[in-house]
C-alpha cells in the first residue's frame, strides 16, 4: 500500500511538473502570427480610437472597446482572436452580437457602457489596396464615420493618406 501511494504521488508530481514546464514553454516561445485581416482591423481600431479623442476609462484595468461587424457574414472567430491578442496590451476588445451588449439602452442619449466606444467595422474591399469603412459610436449624438485606405502585404500594412470622414450608415438607426 505504501509503495503504491509513493508511486501514485510520484506519478502525479511528474505529470504536474511536466505540465508546468509545458505551460511556461507555450507562453515564452510562442511564435506570434496574425491573419492579414486582423492586422488591418487592429491598425484601424487603434487609429480611430485616437481620432475620437475620447479618454477611455483605464482606472481598474485595460480600457474596454466594443467592436461590431457591419458585414453580414460577421468576422471569423480566428480573426477576432487575432485582433484581441494584437491589441491585448492596449485595450480589452469585446466583439458583440447585439447593440444592447455595448449600449446602455436605459440611459438618456444611449451612451456606450463604461464611457467607452463602439466601433463598427465594414467589410474589407480588396483591389490594389484595401478600403474599409469604420464607424465610431459614443452616444446617439456622437457618431462619426471614416473611410480608410491601406496598402501593404501580409505582414505589414500602412495607411494611404489620411482617412476620409464620411456619413455614418451603420449606426444611424442602430439603437
Amino acid at each position, binding site marked *: 500500500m505504501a509503495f*503504491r*501511494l509513493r508511486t*501514485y*504521488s510520484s*506519478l*502525479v508530481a511528474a*505529470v*504536474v511538473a*511536466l*505540465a*508546468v514546464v*509545458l*505551460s*511556461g514553454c*507555450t*507562453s515564452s516561445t510562442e511564435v506570434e502570427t496574425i491573419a492579414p485581416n486582423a492586422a488591418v482591423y487592429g491598425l484601424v481600431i487603434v487609429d480611430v480610437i485616437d481620432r475620437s479623442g475620447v479618454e477611455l476609462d483605464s482606472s481598474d484595468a485595460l480600457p474596454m472597446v466594443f467592436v461590431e*461587424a457591419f458585414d453580414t457574414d*460577421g*468576422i*471569423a*472567430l*480566428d480573426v*477576432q*482572436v487575432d485582433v*484581441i*491578442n494584437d491589441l*491585448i496590451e492596449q485595450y*480589452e*476588445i*469585446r*466583439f*458583440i*452580437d*447585439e447593440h*444592447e*451588449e*455595448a*449600449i*446602455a439602452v436605459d440611459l438618456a442619449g444611449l451612451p456606450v*457602457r463604461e464611457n467607452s466606444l463602439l466601433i463598427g467595422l465594414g467589410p474589407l474591399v480588396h483591389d490594389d489596396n484595401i478600403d474599409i469603412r469604420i464607424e465610431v459610436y459614443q452616444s446617439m449624438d456622437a457618431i462619426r464615420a471614416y473611410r480608410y485606405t491601406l496598402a501593404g502585404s501580409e505582414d505589414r500594412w500602412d495607411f494611404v493618406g489620411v482617412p476620409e470622414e464620411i456619413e455614418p450608415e451603420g449606426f444611424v438607426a442602430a439603437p
Partner: protein
Amino acid sequence: MTAIAVGAPYPADQSVLGDSSARSLLPVQAMHSAGEALFALSLVGSLFFNVSVDAARPRILLYLTLTMAPFAVLAPLIGPVIDKLRGGHRAVLLLSFGARAVVALLLASQLKTLLLYPEAFVVVVAAKVYVVARNTLVPSLVADHDHLVVVNSRLARVGAVSGVVAAPIGVAILQVGDAGWVLRAAAVFYVLGALSALRIPEHRVDTAPSPMVELTEMHGPGIKFATMGMMGLRMATGFVLFHVGFSLKTSGLPTWVVVGVLVSGAAGGFSGTFIAPWLHRRWNEQQILTTSLVLPAVAAVVAALRFHSATAVALAAALGLAGSIGRRAFDGVIQTQAPHARRGQAYAGLETRLEIAWVVGSLAAVLSRLPGWLGLAILAACLGALSLYRALVGVVAAHSGALDVALPVRLMETADAVAARGDLQQAVLVALAAAEAAAISGKVAPARLAELQRMSRALAISDDPAGDETLLRLAWELVAETS
C-alpha cells in the same frame, strides 16, 4: 408510490461518517468543488467574453458534441474498472484530477487563444468523469446502504461550502493577478484532490448480488420514474449554464454577475441539503422530485419576464436548490428500491445517463440560438410539463400501486422466471435478495431471514434441486406476507 415511509428519519450524519470509509471522500469532494469554482471563475477572464457568441457557437457546438463521446464509453468502462481492478476507483479519480490539473496549467497561458475551447471541454469531461466515478463509488463505501442519502448529502454540503469559500479566493486572485493565476490555483486544488483520493480505502462489496438482482432493481418502475425526473433537472442545468451564459454576455451585464450566478448556485445547493429532510417529513421521494422541478420553472418564468442580474442569480439559486433536493430524493429512491445494486457497473450506467442529459440540455441551448426570454420561457414550459406529467402519473400510481416498492415481488417473479429456465442456483440467489428486500420493510422477523440465508448456504454446498425449490417457496411466503 411511497419509496420510503414519509417521515422516516434518515440516520444521523455523525453515526454515518464517524465510522465509515466514505469519510475519506470528504476532502476529495472539497478539493474538486474548490477547483471547479476557480476554473469557472477563470472563464470570466477568458476569450469567452471577448468574442461574439455567434462566431464562437460552432466551436462550442463541436466540443459539446465531442463531450458526448466519452460518456458513450463511460458506462461500460468505469463500472467494470471500479468493480474489478484493485484500487480501480482511485485510478479513475486520479485520472480525472490529474487531467484537470495538467489542462488547467496549460490553459493558464492560453485563455485568450482558440485552445480555450478544447482545453475547457477536457476539464468539463474530466469533471463529469469524477462525478460519475464518485457517485458510483459512494454506495460501495458506505457501511450500510441505508446511509447512502446521508453520505451523499454530506458530500454535497462539503462541496457547496468549499465552492463558496474558493470563489472569493479566486476573485482576490483576479484583483491582484489575472485569470491565468486563478487557473493555476485551481490546478493546486486538483493536485490536492488527487493526493486526497489516494487516501480512499479500497472498497469491498461484502455481498456480491446476482447481476440479475441488480438488473431487476435498477430497471424497476420507481427507479425509472425517478431517473426521468433527475434527468430533467440535469438537462435544465446544462441548458441554463449556456443559455444564461450567452444571455449575460449579449445583454451587457457586468461580469461580476457571473460570479454571483456561480455563488448563488452553490448556495442553493447547500440550502437544499437542509431543506430536503424537512420536505421528506411531509412528502415521499417521488413527490419531492416532482416539486423540485416546479421551483426552477417558476424562477425561469420570472427571469423570462425580466432578465437582469437579480433574476439570473435567482434562477441559478433555484436550480442549485432544486438539484440538491432532487438528488437527495433520487438517492432515497435508489436506497430503498435498489438496495443490492451497489456495484459500480449498475450505478455507472445510471450516473452516465444523468451526465448525458446535462450535455443534451447544453446542446439545446447552443443549437437553438433563442432570444434570452424565449429560451427561459421554453425551459419553464418544459419543466412545468414534466412536473405536471409526473404529478399525474404519481396520482394514478398512488391508486394502482404501479410505482410502489413491490421490489421483493418483482425479484421473486424474476427468480421464478430464472427457475423456469432451469437455473435453480441463480434463482435461489435472486429469491434471497427478494427476502432481504422484504426485510427492509421491517415486517419480517430477522430470524426468518437468517434461516433462509442459512438454508441457501447449505444448498450451495449440497446442490439439492428439491432444497432449492423449497427455499423458493419459503421466500415467496415471506415476500407475500410483507407485500
